[in-house]
């Protein structure tokens, strides 16, 4: 930590900038100056996949502020962008570059998801120089300090990114053990990191690479197929990341084994149907969605969330909706954004919904 950062984080400076905090002043001078917050400048965009008719995939390189503490391969970061309309929206993306140190550049590889405003915006519209907001790296889907001799990665679709970050880190550390890399993609054209993987597989301590395209004749995952590629796979340290279908297929094969580590990429839920279940994440309570507003449903479930006017004006009851669709009873608007702040006294869930209460 530099002297400037030490001073900026000191109690003296925070006393002078109270109650707003030093970052609220620094950002007005230069968005890349920060004492506590993390921001980054987009320095490069490389297209990975550009197949007509398919969502484009790009690798974005970011220069973070000096407050970035670095990441361990496999971790993700919450990335917030200012979308047109003045709204900042935040999504999680896995870091695709190898382990980084404080202040180091890193990359994020993302598909321009047709339903995803953030990835669409970044891949299709963002320009070099764009400033994004970041969290520190999060997640424990990482390699252990002592890397086992044999590692197995099973990935599907965009689940390849954390595995790729780990693989790149192992390359950099000149890991000499055995690595098996099994990946399922839509087709060869959609396969990202193809050339890099091919190159790594041909190096001295290369990887045992299996790229499978079920829609183009490749076989779907089966435990027998895995046993053929990696005999005794249940005793091999395995990192699994991909869509729900793949995770559901692989997990039972490892039952009773403690070698499997899973990172789940949850598909967004768009229900819009009444009924379903309302769950309160903090208290672990869940109940059938009665159609009442979330405040009333929480109270009916025995919780006592903070509230004020109960008519949507005082913001005393704002809570974070983790997932699901809610309807604002004042405006009739529905919204399905995850991790969204809602006024629970004027929001009714449409189908399944999870609120942090």
């Amino acid at each position, binding site marked *: 930590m530099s002297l400037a950062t030490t001073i900026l984080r000191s109690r*003296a400076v925070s*006393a*002078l900038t*109270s*109650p*707003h905090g030093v*970052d*609220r*002043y620094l*950002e*007005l001078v230069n968005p890349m100056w920060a004492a506590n917050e993390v921001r980054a400048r987009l320095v490069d965009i490389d297209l990975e996949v550009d197949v007509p008719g398919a969502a484009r995939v790009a690798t974005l390189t970011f220069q973070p502020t000096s407050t970035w503490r670095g990441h361990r391969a496999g971790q993700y970061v919450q990335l*917030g962008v*200012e979308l*047109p*309309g*003045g*709204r*900042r*929206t*935040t999504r999680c993306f896995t870091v695709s570059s190898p382990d980084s140190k404080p202040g180091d550049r890193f990359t994020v590889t993302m598909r321009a998801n047709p339903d995803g405003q953030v990835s669409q915006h970044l891949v299709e519209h963002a320009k070099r120089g764009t400033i994004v907001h970041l969290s520190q790296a999060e997640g424990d889907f990482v390699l252990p300090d002592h890397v086992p001799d044999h590692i197995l990665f099973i990935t599907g679709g965009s689940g390849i990114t954390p595995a790729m970050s780990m693989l790149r880190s192992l390359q950099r550390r000149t890991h000499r053990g055995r690595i098996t890399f099994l990946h399922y993609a839509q087709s060869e054209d959609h396969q990202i990191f193809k050339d890099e993987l091919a190159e790594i597989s041909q190096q001295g301590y290369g990887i045992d690479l299996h790229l499978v395209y079920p829609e183009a004749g490749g076989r779907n995952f089966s435990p027998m197929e895995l046993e053929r590629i990696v005999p005794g796979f249940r005793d091999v340290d395995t990192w699994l990341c991909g869509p729900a279908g793949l995770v559901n297929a692989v997990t039972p094969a490892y039952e009773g084994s403690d070698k499997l580590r899973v990172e789940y990429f949850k598909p967004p839920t768009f229900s819009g149907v009444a009924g379903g279940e309302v769950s309160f994440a903090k208290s672990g309570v869940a109940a059938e969605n009665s159609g009442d507003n979330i405040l009333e449903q929480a109270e009916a479930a025995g919780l006592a969330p903070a509230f*004020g*006017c109960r*008519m*949507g*004006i*005082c*913001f*005393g009851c*704002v809570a974070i909706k983790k997932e699901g669709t809610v309807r604002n009873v*004042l*405006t009739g608007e529905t919204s399905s954004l995850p991790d969204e*702040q809602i006024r629970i006294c004027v929001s009714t869930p449409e189908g399944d919904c999870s609120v942090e209460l």
Partner: protein
Amino acid sequence: MDAIRQRTVAKLGDEDAAYIRKIVKWQRGLEVAGRVGFYVPPLWPAAVASLGVSKILDNMEIGHNVMHGQYDWMGDPGLNSRVFDWDTMAPAENWKHGHNYVHHTYTNIVGKDRDVGYGILRMDPDQKWHPYYLGNTIYAFLLMVFFEWGVMAHDLEAEEVFAGRRSMFRGENAPVWRKIRKKVSKQVLKDYVVFPLLTGPFFLTTLAGNAIANLIRNVWTFSIIFCGHFPAGVASFSIEECEDESRGHWYYRQLLGSANITGGKLFHVMSGNLSHQIEHHLFPDVPARRYPEMAVEVREVCNRYGLQYNQGSLFKQLATVYGKIFRLSFPNRTKKADVAATSVAQQAVAA
């Protein structure tokens, strides 16, 4: 009213985000300029003015409005009602309860809205007279000068403490005090210790400058706020007539219980657009810069239904407020008759 709200909310976007960021930039710029100006003695008056204006912007157009959740839709933590705190003595948490919830829900219901007299003044003829109120004008003057301290103490509910229904420091007041102590010590340390010390030989002039900047802000915000609910012609309500109130009646009460101040664009910005108190009370969570355009539609609705739309110049409204503060120090001559316009509005409510 719902339709007006919805039309405006649909328009919110880049323009509003750019506007509030521009105001924040001006506020921070003026603040830094003011603090730096204290190092150059001949600039002292300009530095005080600059800091005073910065504190007004922080208090009104930024603090008050951001803490109403007007900019929550932007998703910017720096402009979020749950995170934001302002450069005054009142801790955000306490204020949001007393203001956003109590005042905005029960606007002008005598006995429920604690902003009617703040527990220390007699601002409505329906408040029972007591010899204590002979000092109404003096209390109002002191409240004006020490307004930020008054707002800070608001949630301690002094009237409940004096009536013996609440302990000053314990019980319900304990968490309120905890937040006050934390916030006030930071504010005092900043304005009256650290910044003056940093200017070394100019310690006393900086100290005085900071105090005067706070005073400027106090007098200004007091004036704007008192003109929002207490000029002649503003209606008050009884608890009984607001029982089982409909949404329509709630709008009706907000409309008749508030008053606007006319003025130019800069005046509206400096008042945090609380010069459009009526629109603010109808739509407290809509970015305040939209109130002038909403006012056109609200007035049209008022004309259509023959409802009073109370507005006047700052000086006219202030004069009626001061008149009322003075008159209400004494017992009512005949009940309500001395505040004629109020009873007219109340008849409208009854009708």
